[in-house]
Each structure stands twice: as structure tokens, then as C-alpha cells.
């Protein structure tokens, strides 16, 4: 039965890969070759819906959040400015977390007691990151984003996971805050507690800043810190991380929203595409081989991260385009 299920999963893979291979180069070509006003207005939102749908499937199968795929891919291959892509990326990650949060909390997989102190640090720092990110020139953001994405590739490539980390003794702070619980795993019931709470919280300063600055979501960083550094069981870490994004990204999303960096025509198709893709992805997950998809995700991120880095370096070496020229272009045709 398992063999047959796996082969069914492999059968679905060429379809997904073909969709990605067809859609992304077309988008990349369009972004550079076709002036924005030469294309029908509905083409890009429709393409965005299709790409985010595929992205939603791949994100579920690859075990990553939508935000980490969204910003480098849409920022690198679509004609939208990186400011709006980051705003939409945060809302994509936020919506995914809000959708998953209630179920994870009710099932007691996400721990509110673990999330509250971490969220306090991460959400405050995400505000700083968002303000800093919006103040930076676009080419610097693209350059830093490229470096960050390539760093995430390295983390995904090398990070180990521990289903039940060994925590000999809870530290004083986590004991005082009562951060512990019982996790009912598939094979055993496990009393969990955490340690290294202060170093963990300090690490969330960096994670919060990066989440706000790049609009990435931060599951890629949350899970290793909660699991490997602080010692929460893997499933508790994954669920708490997903729930946590709903708080961290909220604070940064408000900064983008209040600074005008949200265009509904980007946000709505992205949310709908990612959510529909996630529903389909969950169904495919039952029969697919996730380890293979994980390699595909790593490959896509490496490609998108390199392109972002390349765009950033290229823009640094290019002569600056006066801001007034953009405004004239935008008002052209009025």
C-alpha cells in the first residue's frame, strides 16, 4: 500500500515541477522584457494566482511557510516593487498562521505559554525590522534578502531535527514561567520542558528583525531555535512556530500597511492562491514523498536567492534613476 501511495506521489511531481518550470521562466522573461503598461492589467494578478497556488502546494510538501518562498520568487520574477512584495509576503505568512493557529492551539500542539514570551520579543523586533526595511533602498534590500535566502538554504541543508530533545533540567526562567507540557506522540507520551530560555529569547531578536525587514515569515528560523536550542519537541516547535508567526507578522504587517506598502491587487490573489494550493498540498502530502520536494524547495530558494543577490549587486553598480522620473512614468497616459 505504501509503495503504491509513494508512486502516486511521484506521479504528481512532474505536474508540479512542470507548472513551476513553465510559470517561473515566463514570469522572469515578462518581468524584464515587457514594459508594465504593455501588458493587460489582469495578466500579472492571474499569473500571481497560478504561481502562488503552485507555491502553496510546494510549501506544504516541502515543510516550509509560504512567506519564505513568496518574497524571493515574486520579488525576483514579477514586476512588483519589493516594498509591496514584502508587505504582501507578510500578509501571506500571517494568513497562513491565522488559519492554522486555532486548530494547533485546540489540539494543544502549539503552546501558548511558550509562545507569549517569545512573541513579545519577536513582534517588538519585527516592528523595528519593518521600519528599517522600508527605510532601506530597494537594491540593498534585494542584496540582503539574497544573502538571507542563501543562508536559509544552508540552514535547511544542514540543520538536524530532534523529535524528543534531551533536556536534563529546565532552566530557572522557564520553570518560573511554567513553560512545560505533555506531548502525546504517535509512539509515546512525553513530558517536555525547555532550557536555554534567555539565549533562545535573544535569538528571537534577530529572527524578529529579519522577519519584519524581509516579510519572510520566520518558520525557517523559529523551528530550529525552539527545537534544537530551547529543547521543545519537534511537533510542539513546528506548531508553536506556526502560531507564533500570527503574532510576529501582525506587528510588522501593521507597519507596512500604515506606510502604504500594501496593494490589494497583490495581496488578495496571493492569499487565495496560497490557501487553495495549501489545501491541495495537504491532499498530495498523503501520497507524496516529501524528502524529494524538500530538495526541490531548496533548489528553488537557492535560485531565487541568487537572483535577488545578483539583482541587488547589479542595481548597486547601475546609475541611480531619479525618483521624479518614476512619477512621470506613472502619470504618463493620464
Amino acid at each position, binding site marked *: 500500500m505504501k509503495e503504491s501511495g509513494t508512486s502516486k506521489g511521484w506521479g504528481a511531481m512532474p505536474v508540479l515541477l512542470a507548472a513551476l518550470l513553465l510559470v517561473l521562466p515566463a514570469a522572469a522573461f515578462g518581468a524584464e522584457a515587457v514594459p*508594465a503598461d504593455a*501588458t493587460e492589467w*489582469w495578466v500579472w494578478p492571474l499569473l500571481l494566482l497560478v504561481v502562488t497556488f503552485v507555491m502553496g502546494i510546494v510549501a506544504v510538501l516541502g515543510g516550509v511557510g509560504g512567506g519564505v518562498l513568496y518574497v524571493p520568487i515574486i520579488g525576483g520574477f514579477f514586476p512588483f*516593487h519589493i516594498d509591496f512584495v514584502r508587505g504582501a509576503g507578510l500578509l501571506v505568512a500571517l494568513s497562513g498562521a491565522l488559519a492554522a493557529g486555532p486548530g494547533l492551539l485546540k489540539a494543544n500542539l502549539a503552546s501558548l505559554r511558550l509562545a507569549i514570551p517569545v512573541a513579545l520579543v519577536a*513582534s517588538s523586533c519585527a516592528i523595528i525590522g519593518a521600519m528599517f526595511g522600508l527605510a532601506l533602498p530597494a537594491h540593498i534590500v534585494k542584496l540582503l534578502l539574497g544573502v538571507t535566502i542563501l543562508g536559509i538554504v544552508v540552514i535547511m541543508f544542514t540543520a538536524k531535527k530532534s523529535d524528543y530533545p534531551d533536556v536534563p533540567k529546565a532552566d530557572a526562567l522557564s520553570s*518560573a514561567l511554567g513553560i512545560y507540557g505533555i506531548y502525546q506522540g504517535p509512539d509515546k507520551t512525553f513530558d517536555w520542558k525547555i532550557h536555554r530560555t534567555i539565549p533562545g529569547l535573544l535569538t528571537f531578536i534577530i529572527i524578529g528583525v529579519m522577519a519584519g525587514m524581509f516579510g519572510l515569515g520566520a518558520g525557517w528560523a523559529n523551528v530550529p531555535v525552539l527545537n534544537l536550542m530551547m529543547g521543545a519537541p519537534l511537533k510542539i516547535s513546528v506548531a508553536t512556530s506556526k502560531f507564533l508567526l500570527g503574532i510576529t507578522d501582525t506587528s510588522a504587517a501593521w507597519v507596512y500597511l500604515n506606510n502604504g506598502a500594501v496593494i*490589494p491587487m497583490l*495581496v488578495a490573489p496571493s492569499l487565495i492562491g496560497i490557501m487553495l494550493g495549501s489545501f491541495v498540498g495537504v491532499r498530495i502530502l498523503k501520497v507524496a514523498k516529501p524528502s524529494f520536494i524538500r530538495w526541490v524547495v531548496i533548489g528553488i530558494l537557492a535560485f531565487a536567492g541568487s537572483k535577488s543577490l545578483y539583482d541587488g549587486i547589479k542595481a548597486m553598480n547601475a546609475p541611480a534613476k531619479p525618483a521624479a522620473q518614476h512619477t512621470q512614468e506613472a502619470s504618463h497616459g493620464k
Partner: protein
Amino acid sequence: MENKKELAASEEQMLYAKWLEKGMLIGLALLVISFGLYVFGIIEPVIPLDELSKYWGLSVKEYLVAVNSNFLHMDHAPTGWAWMKLIGKGDYMNFLPIAILSGITILCYGAIVPVFKKKGENAYMIMSIVEIVILTLAASGFLAAGH
């Protein structure tokens, strides 16, 4: 017995989940409706749909200046909660569900503060109140950024 008790989610966790679920469903449903009204041209937007592609490639600062000078003619470019004045327009109408999705976490925290108070969990009560203050500050629009 103790194990059974701790395997279940706590009172505050269940309460947070209930508020989150309601807010998320309302926000997403409204977003689908408002986007439908916008994208199918049922409610007229500020930026005509066929001109939008001239603007989404600009930086946020340039975008705000261009939209204000070409369409809105307001004293200042519409940042912060200025979208509320334009809520009758197809594009700006979508900001309402986006604000609900971004704001529901504040209400969730507000719901669990009394539970922590009742249980005498002062550290968690204070952390929750501080989180509400931080998120409200972020939502207030006082935190400006710019290139």
C-alpha cells in the same frame, strides 16, 4: 489524572483559539467579497484597474506621491488610517479585511488577560498587556518609515 489534565489545552489557550478562529474567518470571508467587488469592477476603485500596472513597480514613497497627485489630490499621501476615508472605493475597501486579519491578535490577547488575572498568573498577564500595547502602537500609524 494529572496527565489527562495537562494533555488538554488550557482555558486561556482555548479562549485565544476561539477568538482567533472567528476573526480569521470573518477577515478572510470579507477579503474574498471585497476583492470580488473590486476586481470585477462592481465598485469603482481610486486607481483604474487598467492603469494599476503603471504604479505597482514604483517604490512605496513614489507610489503614494503618484497616486495622490494623479487621483486623490489630498493634502498628504494616504498613509496610516487614511484609507478609512476611501473605504467606499473598490481598492481601498480591501483594507478593511486586511486590518481585521492584522488586528485580531490584539483582541485575542485582550480576551486572555482576564483569565491570567483570575488565575493569578501575573507574569503572563503583564506580558499580554505589554504585547497589546506594542501591537496597538504598531497599528496606530505613529510608527513612520521611509526611504
